[in-house]
């Protein structure tokens, strides 16, 4: 399967076959990012490094992302320069690789790609895995001047304003979570949220609608049907996406921003674990 050239930015998606041919490229860094904490150690793509969404990308005290200095250190340690193309892949239909890519975008690292289908597709095709951990030559990544929170990240107040202004809010969780029938996502434990439901005015478009059964992204026409034809979104709309902690919504952010070329999409990473616990946050339920 090739990448659909009708995506707005088809260059951000690469096939497993493409990655297989470029494993040893000097200007490329393959990055695995998973939900399963130990999965990388059980076997990963040759030359792939591991970036842990919690340990490496988040502040360990405050619920926030790392600061630019820490991002520069992370990249330097992993042999990444601003010119390095980072190819992300991982488990869970690329939730966490999209999340890692989104965090890299917070720091303005522009050269990013996703391996379509992620880890599962690579394995399903019988491609090689290794337990050998690469040791890239350390680089000196410049400290980014800013973290682009205002551009691609939404906070509680932003999501509230979005709701009050009747601007597009997309809830990418499962329908049961959206309706307030459950306070955990299917097949996962409770993540400590006190109220169920959704942000008033939000529309339910589960992240899963954007992928095929093999975890690859649906083609451009199918995606446009979902988000533009059915939901009525326009490429210039100001859109906020959310889920529970921001990883599934990173996936939808990737779809809207790169595959469909929407220009003003922000990910509300506080998501439902913030909103559903916040005192007096307005909540809507539906059946």
């Amino acid at each position, binding site marked *: 399967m090739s990448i659909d050239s009708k995506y707005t930015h088809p260059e951000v998606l690469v096939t497993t076959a493409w990655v297989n041919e470029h494993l040893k490229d000097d200007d490329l860094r393959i990055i695995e990012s998973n939900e399963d904490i*130990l999965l990388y150690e059980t076997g990963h793509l040759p030359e792939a490094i591991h970036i842990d969404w919690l340990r490496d990308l988040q502040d360990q005290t405050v619920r926030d992302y790392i600061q630019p200095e820490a991002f520069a250190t992370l990249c330097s340690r992993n042999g990444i320069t601003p010119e390095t193309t980072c190819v992300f892949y991982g488990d869970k239909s690329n939730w966490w690789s999209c999340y890692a890519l989104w965090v890299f975008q917070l720091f303005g690292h522009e050269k990013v790609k996703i391996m379509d289908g992620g880890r599962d597709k690579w394995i399903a095709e019988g491609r090689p895995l290794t337990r050998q951990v690469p040791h890239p030559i350390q680089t000196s990544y410049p400290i980014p001047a800013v973290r682009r929170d205002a551009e691609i990240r939404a906070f509680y107040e932003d999501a509230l304003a979005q709701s009050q202004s009747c601007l597009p809010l997309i809830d990418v969780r499962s329908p049961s979570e959206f309706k307030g029938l459950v306070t955990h996502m299917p097949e996962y434990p409770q993540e400590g949220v006190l109220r169920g439901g959704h942000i008033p005015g939000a529309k339910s478009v589960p992240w899963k609608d954007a992928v095929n059964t093999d975890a690859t992204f649906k083609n451009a026409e199918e995606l446009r049907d979902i988000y533009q034809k059915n939901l009525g979104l326009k490429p210039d709309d100001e859109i906020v996406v959310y889920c529970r902690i921001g990883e599934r919504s990173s996936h939808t952010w990737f779809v809207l921003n790169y595959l469909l070329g929407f220009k003003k999409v922000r990910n509300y990473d506080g998501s439902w674990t913030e909103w559903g616990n916040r005192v007096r946050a307005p909540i809507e339920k539906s059946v």
Partner: protein
Amino acid sequence: MSYPSKLTAIIDLFSGLSDAEKRETLIAYADQARLQEPREGERFDLEDVRKDDECTDTVGIHLRLDEGGRAHFRITLGPQVQTLTRAMSSILCKGLEGITPTEVLEIPADFVPKIVGAELVRLRSQTVYYLLTRMKGVAKVWLQRQRAFCPSQESEI
């Protein structure tokens, strides 16, 4: 309550390891998870195979009691179950090997972070506790059945 001796040995093993060594050892245990599955021809006194809403995949707990009333567990895990949970299935099958169902019920869950380490116990890794809960559930049902069928033997179990 103190832990069973085999589980204590595993806890002691992990307590002397660095974080990196803990991860390596957990991977080694995860690699052995298949060995804890039921073997051909094995019969069990109680089996509980199900997929709960909060879990990624199916977990099966298979309990056999020997003539001495000692419990022997086997565990089956669906393919989507995380690596840490696979490791814990090996650890629990080995650590609880040969204790009585009553002793299974008394095991506190506070050994998990001692083995896994605080860094790896995350909200989405709670299935490591879930496995022990399921094993206790099977042990409890077995005990209840025994008491229902053989009330006079209650004190012996």
